[in-house]
């Protein structure tokens, strides 16, 4: 904390006020209202009717709700785990091999290409992928036919077996560039001499990756894991645009489920219950994760 000489420490508090007011209006009050509404029955207009724990009792036995939460785990796999692992390997390859064997510009080019899906608006990226996976005249099925694998053609987004895996592939494709960009900026920090010393000792790429790269970018890794897991839990766009939760309930996720309750059924009370439950899960996850983060970083020092 730096302080201007002679200034009273409390005199700065007033500068926090605009931010606090914003936080109050945009985050805190709606959050509290949401929690309150989850204890009521409300159609969105008029006065909410207090119903106590009714919504919360309903959520415990609501198969659709639990199915949607189960699917959140798959979303975490598709948005966090797989892109992070792939991103780690790719960024290490890019900065360790491509950058050295070819050029820095080549590595930047690859990084840019991988990042493109992140720049596209999610609706555009999703709809294009929806066209590619169309059963009739979709690019994937046409390519399979052209290379003689016609028997592998599938009704990708229309079948209960394939809708979720395809959705996950689309999410992986969208997400992939994000960890790469973060990790590569982290790797800039690493002293090249470390790698040189390790090479002189006869370490191969994998050995260097495990003993130098990975430990050095732990802070970046933790940030990526936290932000993308929260993103995964909030997945909405691709489900809304591609499958509407179907076929059956195969691709329903909590955000989409609360949306249907809010706006389609206009059971605002129950929609608020679902979104409050989702918020709780995210907050608990973020707190636990922060503890782990502190612990890991302390150990590193």
């Amino acid at each position, binding site marked *: 904390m730096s302080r201007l000489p002679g200034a009273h420490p409390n005199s700065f508090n007033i500068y926090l006020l605009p931010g606090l007011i914003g936080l109050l209006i945009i985050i805190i009050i709606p959050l509290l209202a949401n929690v309150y509404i989850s204890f009521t029955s409300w159609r969105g207009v008029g006065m909410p009717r207090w119903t106590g724990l009714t919504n919360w009792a309903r959520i415990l036995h609501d198969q659709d709700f639990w199915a949607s939460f189960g699917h959140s785990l798959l979303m975490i796999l598709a948005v966090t785990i797989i892109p992070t692992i792939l991103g780690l390997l790719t960024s290490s390859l890019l900065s360790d091999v491509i950058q050295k064997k070819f050029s820095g510009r080549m590595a930047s080019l690859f990084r840019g290409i991988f990042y493109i899906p992140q720049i596209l608006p999610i609706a555009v990226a999703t709809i294009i992928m929806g066209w590619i996976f169309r059963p009739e005249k979709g690019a994937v099925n046409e390519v399979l036919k052209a290379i003689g694998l016609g028997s592998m053609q599938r009704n990708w987004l229309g079948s209960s077996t394939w809708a979720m895996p395809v959705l996950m592939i689309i999410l992986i494709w969208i997400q992939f560039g994000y960890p790469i960009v973060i990790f590569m900026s982290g790797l800039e920090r690493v002293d090249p001499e470390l790698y040189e010393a390790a090479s002189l000792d006869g370490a191969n790429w994998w050995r260097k990756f495990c003993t130098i790269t990975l430990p050095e970018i732990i802070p970046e890794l933790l940030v990526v894991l936290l932000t993308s897991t929260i993103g995964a839990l909030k997945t909405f766009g691709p489900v809304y645009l591609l499958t509407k939760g179907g076929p059956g309930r195969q691709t329903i996720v909590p955000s989409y489920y609360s949306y249907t309750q809010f*706006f389609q059924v206009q059971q605002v009370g129950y929609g608020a219950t679902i979104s409050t439950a989702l918020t709780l899960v995210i907050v608990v996850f973020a707190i636990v994760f922060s503890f782990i983060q502190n612990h890991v970083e302390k150990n590193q020092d």
Partner: protein
Amino acid sequence: MATSLAMLAGVGACGSSNSSSQEDGNTLTVWWYADEGSAESKGWNQTIKVFEKKTGKKVKFERKSFEQIAKNGSQFLNSDKAPDVMESNRGNSSAGLLVTQNLLSDLGPYVKKYGWDKIVKGQNQILGKYTSKGVIGGNTWYGIPTYAEMQRVYYNDDLFAKYNIPIPNTFDEFVSALAKFKENGITPLSEAAMEYPLQQLWWQLVLSKADKKFVEDYQLYKGKVDWNSEPFTFATNTIEAWLKAGYISKDVSGLKSEDAFTGFTNGTHPIFVTGTWNHGRFMDEAKNFKWESKEWPGANVYEGGTGNILTIPRNAKHKDMAAQFINCALQPDIQNFIGNAGGIPLTYDPSAIKDPSLKVMIDDFKKVASKGVLGYYPDWAGANMYDSMSSSLQQFVNGEITGKQMLDAYKGYYDQGVKDLGILD
């Protein structure tokens, strides 16, 4: 065609402008979300022109999206920013919901003043009148329909001629036409199960075995719905049989309504069962072959109903002017205009309709409506039934669940959807 009629329509009568109230302001705010290309949207645009000319007042029109009105309509209407005239989706879960939220004006006095019930007659009144619980077919006018729509079968005449297949007039002829196309290696029906087309075909099959009482039980909750009754099993078994026979593509669960539309207009599939709201688009886009449309071959009840209604929100500031506007839209000049634009007017002068195929379509609707055998749509009876039913139908056409399981799931959606509407105590 539409533009030449615009000039003819200038002489319409909207009733005089002896507005009796103390309302101030000369600007009427009107909202609708109908597609720009649709007949009703063209008709209402024309209404604005005629209204402004007749009354000397101004209309401020704002196009909203369907989602805006369906999902946030109640919030707008509850504020002082409510429009004077608003298009609303008809039915229990849309306009009915607004009625229960006390957001719409009772139009009874205006109906009496202008005699609207002499233009909107018989079954055409059902979707404009609601009970205090927001159920269609009540006693209080909350919305006025100004056009109608129904499901029809669109045939590619060139393909029928090429394979020497007669255009069917009965259900048996329809099925044998499907079989003959299949023998020639053509999948006859253009369909999609991700969105409404296949759901609507299923409902038309249900209605073909249904009667008025069935519709009243299902849509107006006058009796219990028996999900094991013949209409449901017949429709479900027929869809299953047609899938097995290859009359419907096996990929149908991955296709959207636009896919089904282009599947017909690009000549891939010779038959498309769809609503008259697509008629205008066929006129514009199906230009490489001759086509015609006929009513569903052999049904007791037909899928369709009057179109979306015009309402006057409770918080509207210019209610008398709003009623004058609605009255304009019901006059013969606008009604004929809607008919020529490819829509179904509620009243019309046959000599004013230029295209004979449109005249057939309008007369078919008139016949059905006067018999009172319109069956509406399957998702109207409960909240959120459209998405739920689509997703189970997808599983059914994939063979992942049986017809019985699908009907059981539908029963669950129906019961929950009716409960969520909060109309039955």
